[in-house]
């Protein structure tokens, strides 16, 4: 292709110019929810979504999509369809008031619980419960974490999550030193002052 961009000039001939092959369903794969821990001791919070063919690649892709710019210490991902969401409330309506007790179950496993403390904000991890179903997890969460008005609750089976392993904790070590991605590394003030003085 004729272009000012040497990269574009090098592009191999691909298909026919202007002939578009529409995307098939799932061309962009399914979606995975991404949670990040900003600091040691702080809670994980929901940061967004990645598209990926599977959980392991979702973890790998989420790492640079969501943790390349601001310092953090850990990350995990879960497939969107494995996140169970409560109804959504507004005003002074606590969502826990809408959650009913399901029939008790036998086999329990750990679930992670997340709260939406304010509309427009992110879901924040509040802790874990042992339950037999997402509904039961929410009802146990009501007993354990119901302290103030919450607008939405998520429950995720811990086993469905791709966590960061202990060895992988060093992924973010050099992040604070990547000054080239940081506004603070582009102070032009001195150069500008010098220039302005010379102009006088």
């Amino acid at each position, binding site marked *: *292709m004729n*272009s*000012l*961009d*040497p*990269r*574009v000039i090098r*592009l191999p001939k*691909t*298909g026919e*110019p*202007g002939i*578009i*092959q*529409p*995307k098939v*369903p*799932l*061309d*962009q*794969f*399914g*979606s995975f*929810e991404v949670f990040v821990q900003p600091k040691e001791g702080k809670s994980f919070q*929901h940061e*967004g*979504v990645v*598209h990926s*063919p*599977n959980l392991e690649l979702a973890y790998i892709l989420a790492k640079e*999509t969501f943790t*390349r*710019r*601001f310092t953090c210490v850990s990350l995990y991902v879960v497939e*969107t*369809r494995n*996140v169970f*969401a409560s109804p*959504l409330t*507004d*005003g002074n309506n606590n969502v826990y008031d809408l959650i009913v007790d399901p029939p008790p179950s036998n086999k329990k496993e750990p679930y992670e619980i997340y709260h*939406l403390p304010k*509309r*427009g904000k*992110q*879901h924040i991890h509040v802790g874990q419960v042992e339950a037999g179903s997402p509904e039961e997890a929410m009802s146990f969460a009501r007993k354990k974490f119901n302290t103030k008005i919450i607008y939405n609750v*998520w429950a995720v089976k811990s086993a469905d999550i791709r966590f960061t392993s202990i060895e992988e904790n060093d992924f973010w070590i050099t992040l604070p030193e990547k000054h*080239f*991605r*940081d*506004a*603070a590394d*582009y*102070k*032009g003030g001195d*150069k*500008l002052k010098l*220039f*302005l003085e010379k*102009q006088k």
Partner: protein
Amino acid sequence: MYGGGNTFEDVKTDDVVLEDPNRLAVFEARIARGEKIEPADWMPELYRKQLIRMIEQHGHSEIIGALPEGTWITRAPGFKRKMALMAKVQDEVGHAQLLYSAAETLGKSREQMIDDLITGKSKYSNIFNYPTFTWADCCFISWLVDAGAIVNQLANAKGSYGPYCRALDRICAEESFHLKYGHHCVIYLAAGTAKQREMFQEALNRWWPPMMHFFGPSDKISTHTEVLMRWKVKMGTNDEMRNQFLDMYVSKIWELGFIIPDPKLKKNTETNTWEYTEPDWEEFKRVINGDGPCNKERLEVRRIAEERGRWVRKALASPKMAYVTPLA
């Protein structure tokens, strides 16, 4: 990076009267209280449609916006510029990723959005249909186009749709590096050799008209939709945004001794607004409809990129996968 330039078509508000009045009242009261709308909420069809269009176009502007600056990735002078430009263009791709996800929560798939971009059905910011001839053009974008985008994005971040606001908060935080980096580049050109100064002056001459187009047609000729303002979808008029940009950046350009190629440009201290030569809105329309210097190349590069990646995506598609709309 996104300007107001794309919400150009007329909005048909007729169907709003067909919405369920009770639900509409709850929805409007929620926005009036300053609460955000979340994906699981009921919302009027017009709200959904307008937001999809706006967020999607914003996403397209990011992924297409990665191209004119990307042109200089392999040629950035010195380590500091090379690494910064790589990271900056990468951020633009990241912003597209965030915005497409936000638009998806409203029910449009990423597949459909990308198809609509490549076929030209859906628009993106007009300014990226212009070429970057020199390094200085790239610096102009990094500084001033990003500055314009930030003016828009900060306003939109106060809008009513939760997922869009969250994406914009993140984008604005990332853009602060872009703006500082861009200004830094231009200061170095200004304080540099005669050749460097000349490079930037020429870039400024080329880019000023599309920069004035960036915020969209003048309020005199564009339609206002009161309901979209009330629903906090559109957060300011095109002229308000343009004026705010001029307020913040004209003095910074002048400070560096460059000449803005508009003899009429001055601030009217009485009205507190800027006066300028009326931008050529016919050109704006022509370019947005496909007849700009780079429209064809931009879409063709995107088409080729999607096409070349197809085998990768096809290989990993799994029958076990099912699409569900992202949650937030």
